[in-house]
């Protein structure tokens, strides 16, 4: 799994951080998404897919 987060699209709602805190974080200065682990282990894949599904700005794309 590869994760891409579009920082231009991100609206800083923080849903991804709540869904998959080991994979997503927010930049201190503006709350915009940061990917901590662009190729997370299988155990986290469901949480990452959930994060992508609930991202209000459709800023997270996941490729298998």
């Amino acid at each position, binding site marked *: 799994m590869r994760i891409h987060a579009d920082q231009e699209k991100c609206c800083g*709602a*923080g849903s991804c951080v709540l869904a998959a805190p080991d994979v997503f974080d927010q930049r201190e200065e503006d709350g915009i998404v940061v990917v901590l682990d662009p190729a997370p282990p299988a155990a986290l894949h469901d949480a990452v897919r959930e994060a992508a599904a609930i991202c*209000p700005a459709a800023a997270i794309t996941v490729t298998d």
Partner: protein
Amino acid sequence: MTTAERTAPPDTLTVPASRAPGCPFDPAPAVADAARTEPITRATLWDGTPCWLVTGHQDVRTVLGDPRFSADGLRPGFPFLTAGAREVIGQKPTFIRMDDPGHAKLRRMLTAEFMVKKVEAMRPEVQHLADDLLDRMTAGRNSADLVREFALPLPSLVICLLLGVPYEDHEFFQERSGILLALRSTPAEAKAALDELVEYLTRLAQAKRERPDDGIISRLVARGELSDGEIASMGRLLLVAGHETTANMTSLGTLALLRNPDQLARLRAEPALIKGAVEELLRYLTIVHNGVPRVATEDVVLGGSTIRAGEGVLCMINSANRDATVFPEADALDVARDARRHVAFGFGVHQCLGQPLARVELQIALTTLLRRLPDLRLAIPYEEVPFRGDMQIYGVHSLPVAW
């Protein structure tokens, strides 16, 4: 008010729709019926203007995520939910009624303030406030109005702390916030409430220029990018939004649990369910109950209907959250279900900025209430609970409880 007197054709659904009769936790019966028969349907606004009603979960997400549907309240055709809202929007538009890039520029000045890490760090402080309020509420008594003594003051204290607004002025801004959110407020009443709030916050911004503190208003002043008036408008939005939403989720959520004793017992037995239970209560209750307004900027085909440029659309997030194709047995409250795909905070780039804060406040408020008052119960007959069908944000006007 001549427009308000025009009447809709008898077979047309009028919004905001009456919530009675029906279960007070469910969407208005007419909206629920529309959701069952047509995912996208024609409706008529209170003032006689035709609009579209979008009720399905996927369609609501599609509209709210598509920039061809504008949030700009100054565009012709924008569907206003009240006469007061129509009056207010032309006066001092805030970023929730703007499109990108203007919206993004203003929103990004605030995203760091509500980010998950920052809000999570506030847990001890919110917990302290919750305990303090319950200490006072229960001292020497065995009944109280939960709205007045707990559900409203808690988020009010928190947003005041965050903004740097003196809490001792709470009666002033809570009253004006109520006027702005009442469906029946006249344009003159709404304008006066808005002007008074913005004037108050403009003075506050000026004072922070002299004596800065650690609040959001001070930090906006320090950025030097906005005038005091613009900061006041932004502050007004945060102050009003920070008040009624979490307050009503807390009180209506408590009532929903009291009316579903099996769910209440489950949550009491397994307090670790609280995060999911809060998501489920957000889904089940969806207190933004009259729809999220947008206007089409070009012709868009949606679910077989063509929505024309300039036509208004109301995204019914309450019926989207009862969409049985996404949430099995959607009309049941189930604190153990996975409700994370709810759209109670909206969807798209306008999705609620304060949602991490709302979640923390609700988790702490409900957990603390249930832990400290094991015998919590309604102090009046359920039939006498004053529901807020007359407000833009649903909930209860008061909630007399005993313990």
